[in-house]
Structures are given as structure tokens and as C-alpha cells.
């Protein structure tokens, strides 16, 4: 099998950038030709299919990590739907609604925060105890629904 090393370069660049646009990614990778840019686009599509990167909104991508590759698209969709349904939520709320892994939910929230789709709205007591949990909200629920929930 012939390896071009493109996937590893893309992974490294995406990890460094966190949230990125395709052009930004190509610059970070040092892409110089149109043919290479086309190969990067194809590779990005494969990464998305595997769940290693997520398309957050038009022109905005985010890297989730290799450990999340292969995770069911269904889980991510469930998490997005749960976020839209609740509008104001904590990681715990989403875990209860979706049965998803807490660490995966945290990764998604962090990436969505970077893209401006989710923001911290405060902290609240955990089930009436002294412990507190961070509460997140959707600054633009309609936009979130159209671009993230429907677009995922």
C-alpha cells in the first residue's frame, strides 16, 4: 500500500488549529498546489466520515481527535438534538438524555464553544448539593438548529 503521509499531516495541522476553515488548514499544512489542495479536501471528507473531524457550520471544521474516529454519527446527532431540545444544559443533562460518553460530550461542547455556537451561561448546584456544574446555553438556537442539528 502506498502512503503519502497526507492524513498524518492533516491530523497534526488540525490538532494544532482545533477549529479551522479549509483554507486555514491548507496554509497550516503548507499546501502549495491545487492538486494537493484537492487531495486535502478529499482527506477531510474521509476524516469527517470517520468522525475524526466535525463540520460545525459553513466553512468551520473542528478536530475531535483520533480516539473519536469511528464513533457513530448517531451519537453526535443525538447530542446535538439534546442540546437544541434543552437550550440550557450541562454535561450531565446531555449524558442522561443521550447515553453518550461524558468525555465525548465535553469535546463537542468545547469545539462548539470555540465556534461560538455554545456559550457558558453560569454554574448551578448539582442536585441541591454544594457541588456545582457548568451550565451552557445556545446564543442562537435557531441558527444552531439549522446549521448544526440539521446540517450534521
Amino acid at each position: 500500500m502506498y502512503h503519502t503521509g497526507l492524513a498524518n499531516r492533516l491530523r497534526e495541522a488540525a490538532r494544532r488549529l482545533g477549529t479551522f476553515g479549509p483554507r486555514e488548514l491548507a496554509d497550516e499544512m503548507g499546501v502549495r498546489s491545487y492538486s494537493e489542495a484537492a487531495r486535502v479536501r478529499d482527506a477531510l471528507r474521509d476524516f469527517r466520515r470517520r468522525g475524526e473531524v466535525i463540520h460545525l457550520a459553513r466553512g468551520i471544521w473542528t478536530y475531535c481527535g483520533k480516539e473519536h474516529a469511528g464513533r457513530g454519527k448517531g451519537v453526535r446527532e443525538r447530542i446535538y438534538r439534546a442540546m437544541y431540545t434543552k437550550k440550557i444544559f450541562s454535561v450531565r443533562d446531555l449524558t442522561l438524555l443521550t447515553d453518550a460518553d461524558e468525555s465525548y460530550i465535553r469535546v463537542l461542547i468545547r469545539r462548539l464553544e470555540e465556534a461560538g455556537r455554545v456559550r457558558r451561561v453560569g454554574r448551578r448546584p448539582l442536585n441541591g448539593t454544594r457541588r456545582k456544574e457548568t451550565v451552557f446555553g445556545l446564543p442562537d438556537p435557531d441558527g444552531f438548529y439549522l446549521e448544526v442539528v440539521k446540517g450534521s
Partner: protein
Amino acid sequence: MRDVFISTQNYQRFEDVFNDLAANRYGVDMAAVIGRAGRGKTTAGERLATQFPDAIYVRPLDFGSPVAVLREVAFVLGGVRPRNTTACYDVLKAELTPNHSAIIVDEADRLGLKHLNVLRDISDHFTIPVILVGEEPLAGKLRQERRLHSRLRDTVAFGPITPSDVLYFYRKSLSQAITPDQSRKLARHAEGDFRLVIKDALRAERILAASGLREINDQVVEEVCK
């Protein structure tokens, strides 16, 4: 304590009704889920909407007009909120497919009869099941109009949390096997409210940590229920 969803008997009944409505449409395609606050109706509705992508979950504002209810449904389906009723119906007509399982309307007890009749119209015209979720006043509102009440295929009364739910909750979230007697006592203490069951479980967890005990015994339950 682990964060796990407990499929209580109330939730199971809600899910059964949801599945029945989604699978079989006879023209009597409405249902009501009624219960006191704190029994987990909203969480159950949200969970069903999350787990089933073809379910439509809306929570209309009580100060909105009947058209506002239509607009919310149109937005979830088509991503637009048309201004008038006809345009909303057009969106519903274009977007609703037989694959859509049901429209779950939360806080339906705060809606007026006009709103509820709009939902009845949607159910009739598009043969889509509508599940109304709300507190006790919803039952009275539905009884006021025979055409609404007669369309209810099923009514799920969200009762108090049962001792078996408490037993299951302690096993799943705390990995503690409590006895049926202890679960009965804890269920009575929580007065059927799931939030109080969680608070009691946290208290029991703290007592175990402080005392060095490994299992919940009668003394721990006594202390929690004090």
C-alpha cells in the same frame, strides 16, 4: 454517583404509548401524559425526542397565539417560521412524512383550548400522532371538549416513583443492592419526586464515605430519611 438514565415505570409507559402511536395510525392518534411537577415528564419527553430522530419536540410559549404553535412545528420540520396559518400548513404538508413518529408538545397544560384544537387539526389533517405532556390541569382542559377527549388513544398518568424504581436507581447509579423494605422507605420519603430520590442517594453516598461503610444498611436509610 454515576449519571445514568433510569428507565422508570412511568418512562416505560410513555415509551410504549409513543411506539404504539408511531407504529399504528387509526385516526385516534393523540395521547396525553399527565402528572405532577417533578415526576420526570419533561425529561422523558426530551429523551424520546433525542433518541428518536423522527420525533418532533416542541415547547410552545404560553403567551403565543395558536399560530405560534404551528410556527414552532414548521420550524422544526422545515427550518422556517411562516407568518400566517396557511403558509405554516404548506410547510407541514411539504415536510411531514409517514416516517415522522409523533409531535411531542411539552407544557401543554399551559395552552388554551384554541391551541389544543390547532394541534388536533394537525393530527387529523396529516395523520401524525400528537402527544400532549403537562400537569393535572391538562386533563380538565381536554375533558372540556369532547372532540379533543375522544381523540386520545391513551393517557399516561405519571405516578409517584415506585419502590422498584428506587431499587433500580440505587443499583445502577450507586451500585448498591438495597432491600425492598429500604426502597419502600426511601420511595415514601421522596414523596414520589425523582429529584428527592437523587438528593437522598447523594446523602446516602456521603454517609457511606464518612462512616467507612461499604454497603447501605438500615441505619443509613434511617439517617437519610430523618
